[in-house]
């Protein structure tokens, strides 16, 4: 009876909302196929192999982890885009270039501090466009943590200043214009910012960081293990004994037999990105819940005129919105380039659509939605490798964004605005 009633329900959805039905069917199929791939189970109809191929579970875990890492950066960057979208009412196409601005400001600072006294300041501040390259500076979170942290603060600070300056020059005179006019103006801002950065920092793609320690997580003979080198697991597999320098212990309740393999490798810079993002997101949560700013923002997003007559200082709220949004996107750009290890003047533009995808997925205006959407887009674009080649994963993320706009434009959380 349960089966028939759910079949009837499925039939009703198929008739009334065919789009949702198709998307739902595809999602169920993908979930089934993922499970099948993890179990290395080929599906035959007659003698035809309809579905084949498998994915080792460790590979999936690695993709998930990488998805979470970039997803947190997208989420952090998305917060500002989401806030300006709901409060100022336009899709800011220059947001990606704020991301790049933060990255360059942070790295210029990190380079100058790391190389002060040894190299010419002008060369250092040009981040690889000058006569100094990263291998001469040996910057990493383990060797020079203070340099990285100072760079982070400057990344936020400079991006905030740039955003406030641009707001004063470009958007403030256009406050009462329609969203589309502001959107077009923001395309102009994006061009100016991006190519000023190109003028100053050249079109090269210099490296930034020194090689950094990686911790390998996995299992040795059925025990959970952490090692400093991936090779530890290979040695363990070959000799049957745990090598020196690895920590391993039995996890309770789960029996994984005598499984020996690395499951996921985590670098110190990935960990830095994750820790910094989580701290900033929690701080943002506190800020919006404990102060009146969050309430004012929600009020302004709902109805700007009503907010003004209620006595909310709208210009001050707009300023605070830019400060929070730009600060976070600047840090996101800096952290993202720390993790990837290279920088390029188009880096922000190239991920802008992914940030849009994150914001739309989470629901425009919702800050928690932007964070969740960022994680979802990050994980989706990495785990899409299960089905499609790497050259098309970004396209898949855009496709998710378009489908979301078409079927659920309010986003996953039903359009809860700001916090």
């Amino acid at each position, binding site marked *: 009876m349960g089966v028939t009633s759910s079949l009837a329900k499925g039939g009703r959805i198929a008739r009334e909302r065919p789009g949702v039905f198709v998307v739902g069917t595809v999602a169920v199929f993908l979930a089934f196929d993922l499970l099948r791939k993890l179990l290395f189970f080929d599906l035959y109809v007659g003698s035809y192999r309809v579905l084949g191929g498998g994915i080792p579970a460790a590979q999936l875990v690695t993709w998930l982890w990488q998805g979470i890492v970039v997803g947190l950066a997208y989420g952090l960057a998305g917060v500002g885009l989401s806030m300006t979208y709901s409060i100022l009412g336009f899709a800011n196409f220059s947001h990606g270039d704020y991301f790049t601005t933060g990255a360059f400001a942070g790295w210029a600072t990190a380079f100058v501090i790391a190389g002060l006294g040894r190299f010419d300041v002008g060369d250092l501040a040009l981040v690889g466009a*000058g006569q100094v390259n990263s291998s001469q500076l040996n910057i990493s979170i383990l060797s020079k943590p203070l340099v990285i942290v100072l760079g982070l603060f400057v990344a936020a600070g400079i991006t905030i200043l740039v955003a406030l300056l641009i707001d004063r020059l470009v958007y403030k005179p256009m406050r009462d214009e329609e969203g*589309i006019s502001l*959107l*077009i*103006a923001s395309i102009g801002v994006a061009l100016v910012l991006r190519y000023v950065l*190109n003028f100053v920092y050249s079109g090269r793609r210099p490296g930034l960081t020194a090689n950094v320690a990686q911790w390998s997580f996995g299992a040795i003979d059925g025990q959970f293990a952490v090692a400093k080198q991936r090779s530890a697991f290979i040695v363990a597999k070959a000799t049957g004994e745990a090598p020196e320098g690895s920590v391993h212990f039995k996890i309770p309740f789960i029996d994984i037999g005598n499984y020996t393999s690395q499951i996921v490798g985590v670098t110190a810079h990935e960990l830095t990105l994750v820790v910094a993002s989580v701290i900033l997101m929690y701080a943002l949560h506190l800020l919006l819940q404990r102060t009146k700013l969050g309430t004012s923002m929600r009020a302004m997003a709902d109805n700007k005129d009503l907010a003004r007559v209620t006595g909310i200082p709208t210009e001050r709220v707009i300023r605070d919105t830019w400060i929070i949004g730009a600060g976070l996107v600047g840090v996101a750009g800096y952290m993202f380039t720390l993790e990837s290890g290279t920088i390029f003047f188009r880096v922000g533009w190239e991920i802008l659509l992914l940030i849009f995808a994150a914001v*739309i997925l989470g629901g425009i205006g919702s800050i928690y939605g932007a964070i969740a959407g960022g994680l979802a887009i990050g994980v989706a674009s990495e785990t899409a490798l299960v089905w499609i080649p790497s050259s098309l994963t970004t396209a898949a993320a855009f496709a998710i964004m378009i489908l979301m706009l078409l079927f659920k434009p309010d986003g996953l959380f039903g359009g809860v605005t700001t916090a």
Partner: protein
Amino acid sequence: MSDADAAQGSGLRAWLMRSDLTLILVTMFALYALFTVLGVILFPTSDLVGSLASSLQGVTQWAALYAMLALALNLHWGYTGLFNIGVAGFMAVGVYTMAMLYNSPSGTPPGLGVPFYVSDFFGNVVGLPGWGFLVGLLVCVLLGMVAAALIGAVAALPALRLRADYLAIVTVGLSEIIRRVLLSTEFQTFTLFANLDVKLGGIEILPDLALGTGAGQGINLPANPVRAMYYLDPSNPGEGTTGLGSFLFDLAGGVGIRQSVVISWTYTGFLIVFVGIFYWLLVRTGNSPFGRVLKAIREDEGVAQALGKDTRRFKIKVFMLGCALMGLGGILWEGSKGFTDPTSTTFLPLTTFYVFIALIIGGAGSNTGSVLGGALFAGLLFEGPLALMQVVNKTFNLGNVNTPANVADALGALAGLDYQPFLAFVFAQRSALRFVLVGVVLIWLMQRRPDGLLGHRKEEASTVNLMERDKSRGGGGVVAADGGEVDE
């Protein structure tokens, strides 16, 4: 509208505004004058005519291409208010569909070789062997437009009920998906129906078809058709020229104009004809009952619906028509090169923004404005700054200066009161600075002149001009009180 303007404007402006054709021609001649002055400074006197002919050809070609795409976009944005920023994607669909249908099955990447079948048909069945290939090419171009229109429909069907800014994100996302698919090595070469062996009476009804986008390697396009007019063998000029070719090449050669420039000018002439066709098509569309509904949708979709118009169907149709024109624009854009690849700037979102800027300069909603905007964008923002930088380069003799490696060195030299290295650096970075200029102009336009030059001539949604009737009665105040514009 323009009559009312003429009555109010000053002498020169009134004369300019009297006829749209005069306005465009005067603009083009002003651009030519500017580039001639720059050219006289730049080019050596021995080759002045040839170099000038080439430089003016460049300006005209870009002006025509931007005018064409601005017109197509005007149909979306200016007429109907559909904010499509995926222009480059639809251009790519047109170009690639055309190329994949046209290319020979034995080529790299392989195509369907439609012209071969068509010329077989014309040669063996109709008995006109000479025409087959041209007809085949036209068939491929038409199918390219159809493909662009269909992709447009796929985007439009669900997306048109979205808010304008959502449509913007959907279209720019779609154009990036298209570009990434074209770049992906997965489709460099592929075989359609490879796994489908459906047989009907012993004959496979879905034969395996090898196709390819060429990915980063690029894809061959049909040779510039102008070359076939002038050369006996388009791929090998050494084989000799046709009668028309010899005549024109001799004529041009007499004043020092190279053969390649003659070919480019002829192609540009075709482009100008196409601008005329686009313009005519848009005017016809705009004045038809269909066009009036479009303008009504732009002004107030709710009212159009209340009057019983199925606005969704109108929007989908006009979106498809505009996308088809963008596909054709893309084909003409790449048509003289004989080759294209997805890394070329043509298919980047930047091209879309350029077309938008051209349309905004001219004034969204006005067809003449679109053409004017295309010409001004191509002349003053696209080609002009580069030519001006060349003049700076020559005037300050920067060729002999060691270009600083980076901005710090350049500024260092400037601080030492040595301006030449700094200028040399600026010259080396001229293409980046051109983008900055384009951005600044875009911001300025949106702040100061959001209507562009001719945006005030946005075509009326009604058949008769309601404003004018008011004026003739000495009224107009009533309309103003309702929020209508008194000042045109």
